[in-house]
């Protein structure tokens, strides 16, 4: 029932002449943010710091409340203290404005103990939410954030489908939205089951599947770079691009997530979401309009254009590997099978390289090489467009028979920005051509690091903007690719699981994969 506060008579906003030309976006509506998994790592490390920053920037409505739900017995006060310690005391970079905001922010916080399987929790929670909404004058808008392991999705969603939690139409006021963290299933079938379960309680337009990569400024800049500059989009095709490399490299190991990772591997942990998102944003056609459905339609079309991978293709176009003992940044680290919680004979892949092709007009004949792995020399996520050589070797008579191709590198993290590599004459009497690089760094050009991805994404959920969230068909198409690979691995055992020492850029087989085409991985 709507409480006193902003009126909620009409579902849609009327055109507002006072809104024209607004530099800033509309202030989000007041709501209750219900975080399932409130004592977990994600809540402490990402969600609460992001909500605190939004609160300090006045991007959260003053009456918006946050209700944490978890199994642990905690009082409201103990919950606040725990989050305060996690968010401010241990976070040296917390700015003064955030520390100053804490007392007001803490007033937003509530805590409810209970087991997600227990129907009584949801009876109590319903009462608690109504009481909070009355107390803070909230109209009944709710965001349900599932910051829980996938096994907990099912009971939570089943209970949320009960009357009183979610209006059946996305535009109904008060509204309800659900945020789901990856992984969205563990294969196509489970993803479809999860989507069906989600849709038993929520309309697709109420569903926000978070891949935090999409909240990064550098990822959003892919479209801006391509489509707001006259010089890039004309080159963004098979006439000028020789091939594309997309890398998601991690220097860390499984870091206490062995239970999950043993079943996921890099194919489910990274390929299905981050790599596929980066690929679709790079390969998509320009959308008709800059709005959520147009952009998501084009991303889906790019995924649909991926050439199917049969078992024979998987055997020769993919490489899977697992790291052994080695050293990262001068420190010895154990191999994957020696990590706590990992089976001594585990066959889980911690590294994956593959070659994909898109069957469409723009990208025909341009291979997309994707790679990702754990315990690689450093953390780096980059997209490289490697351009073709000039059609005529003008400098051959001067003895210059080959030189490096031009590369447009989009750095997603760290050092967000991009660079262009091109050849330049080396100063001197003789003609030598050396590659030089022009760099753009967000931090040097805009004077500050871009905001955290979760800030942007949480704000978008509050505003109801789905642009930066994965749609059902996107998720399922990405699973089709992953399933075609993992099923072939399972059925044929090819390629066999290779190994690489921790601290190296993957196995030799990955080098061979790209060298067969006369190319090589770019240095990161």
């Amino acid at each position: 029932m709507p409480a006193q506060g902003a009126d909620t008579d009409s579902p849609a906003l009327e055109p507002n002449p006072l809104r024209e030309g607004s530099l800033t976006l509309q202030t989000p509506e007041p709501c209750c943010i219900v975080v399932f998994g409130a004592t977990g790592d994600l809540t402490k490390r990402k969600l609460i710091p992001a909500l605190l920053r939004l609160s300090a920037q006045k991007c959260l409505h003053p009456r918006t409340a946050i209700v944490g739900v978890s199994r642990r017995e905690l009082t409201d006060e103990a919950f606040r203290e725990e989050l305060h310690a996690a968010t401010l005391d241990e976070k040296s970079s917390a700015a003064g404005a955030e520390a100053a905001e804490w007392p007001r922010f803490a007033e937003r916080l509530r805590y409810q103990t209970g087991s997600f399987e227990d129907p009584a929790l949801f009876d109590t929670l319903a009462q608690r939410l109504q009481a909070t909404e009355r107390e803070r004058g909230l109209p009944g808008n709710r965001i349900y954030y599932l910051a829980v392991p996938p096994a907990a999705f099912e009971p939570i969603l089943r209970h949320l489908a009960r009357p009183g939690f979610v209006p059946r139409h996305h535009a109904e006021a008060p509204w309800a939205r659900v945020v789901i963290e990856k992984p969205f299933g563990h294969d196509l079938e489970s993803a479809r089951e999860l989507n069906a379960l989600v849709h038993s309680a929520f309309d697709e337009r109420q569903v926000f599947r978070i891949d935090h990569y999409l909240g990064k400024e550098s990822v959003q800049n892919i479209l801006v770079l391509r489509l707001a500059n006259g010089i890039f989009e004309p080159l963004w095709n098979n006439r000028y691009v020789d091939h594309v490399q997309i890398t998601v490299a991690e220097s860390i190991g499984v870091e206490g997530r062995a239970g999950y990772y043993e079943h996921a591997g890099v194919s489910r942990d990274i390929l299905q979401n981050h790599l596929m998102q980066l690929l679709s944003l790079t390969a998509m056609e320009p959308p008709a309009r800059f709005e959520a459905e147009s952009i998501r339609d084009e991303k889906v079309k790019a995924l649909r254009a991926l050439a199917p991978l049969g078992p024979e293709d998987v055997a020769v176009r993919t490489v899977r590997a697992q790291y052994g003992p080695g050293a990262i940044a001068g420190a010895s680290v154990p191999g994957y099978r020696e990590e706590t919680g990992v089976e001594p004979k585990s066959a889980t892949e911690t590294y994956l390289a593959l070659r994909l092709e898109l069957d469409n007009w723009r990208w025909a004949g341009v291979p997309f090489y994707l790679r990702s792995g754990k315990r690689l020399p450093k953390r780096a996520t980059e997209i490289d467009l490697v351009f073709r050589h000039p059609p005529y070797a003008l400098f051959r008579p001067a003895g210059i028979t080959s030189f490096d191709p031009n590369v447009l590198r989009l750095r997603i993290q760290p050092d967000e920005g991009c660079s262009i590599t091109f050849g330049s004459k080396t100063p001197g009497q003789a003609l030598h051509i050396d590659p030089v690089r022009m760099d753009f760094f967000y931090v040097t050009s805009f004077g500050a690091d871009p905001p955290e991805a979760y800030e942007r994404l949480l704000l978008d959920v509050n505003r109801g903007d789905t642009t930066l969230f994965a749609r059902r068909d996107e998720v399922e198409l990405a699973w089709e690719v992953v399933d075609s690979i993992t099923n072939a691995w399972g059925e044929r055992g090819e390629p066999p699981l290779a190994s690489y020492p921790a601290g190296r850029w993957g196995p030799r087989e990955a080098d061979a994969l790209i060298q067969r085409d006369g190319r090589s991985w770019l240095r990161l």
Partner: protein
Amino acid sequence: MWKAAASAREGGGGIYRAALSNLVTPIDPESHRRLANVLVEVTRRHPSRLILVEIGRDEEPRELRGEVAALCHLRPAGGYICSEQIVLRGGTGSGPLIPSAVRSLLVGNLPITLLDLRAGPTPEWVEEIAERADLRLADSGHLPSGADRRRFWTRIADDAEGRVRDFAWSCLAPWREVVADAFDAARLASALRDVREVSIEVGAEIPCAPVPSLFAGWIASRLGWSSPDGDRGETRYRAADGPAVIRVTRREGSTGRNLQRVRFRARDAQRLDLTVTHEPDASVAAVEVAAPAANRYEIPFAERDLASMIVAEMHRHQPNPILRDAARFAVAVSLPDEGGEGAR
């Protein structure tokens, strides 16, 4: 200078020399005191070659002296991001020398922003620099008279390219947002077409002065009113189906120009009566709806610091038709105890 900076610095990391624009800023002792830290922050957020021009402190009439320094900011990932700060000083007679000096110091192929937030008249040399500037940002709230403000707003209204901007417009941003939000939050935007009476209450003056005339001009232009005619704090307009009015009054016990309250009423008061109040320094604005249904709620009032407002204007590269319309209407708005704004 850069070699010296590189060898003198402590700690690791390199020096990144960066410039996205030329920022030319005439200063006087008062504005220098007010803006010194703000400009440093501006160069952190938008690395720029900062050229400060200060006239009138030197006894020698026709001589310019310059100093150059590096403005460096610690880079989160290590090292420093640096840009140049050049200070030109001269006597009162050296104005004619300044434009040529500034021209020779600009980084080529980068935009030129002229930021003039001084109080007082605009000297000829500033106008000459403004001719070449891609963006001229001045504050109508600091112009000495109503006639100066009217001339400035007329210039904005006539500037189709959007090169001239009013900093007072930036100061109005939280008010514009909160008023738009008030109607959206109450789902009363459709009632705006019935508004026939707007009352604006003003109070104590503050450094970033959201000028009420510009605010009134914005409301009138957005509501599609025409034919403004003002006298003694009351400006009358023609709406689609009859007369409309904006009144600007002093809030009891307050002086100065900043906004404190605005009330919107329809011709039929039962159709709409909505008041937005923001007390100085409050983090929220209170919205009180008397009609069509009584309601009261709060909306965040997101005041921004000066540096972020300046940077936001430097980042805006498109003409601003909303500002142009507001400026065109602001010229005719009447303030309390005065005729039009131009009479001040």
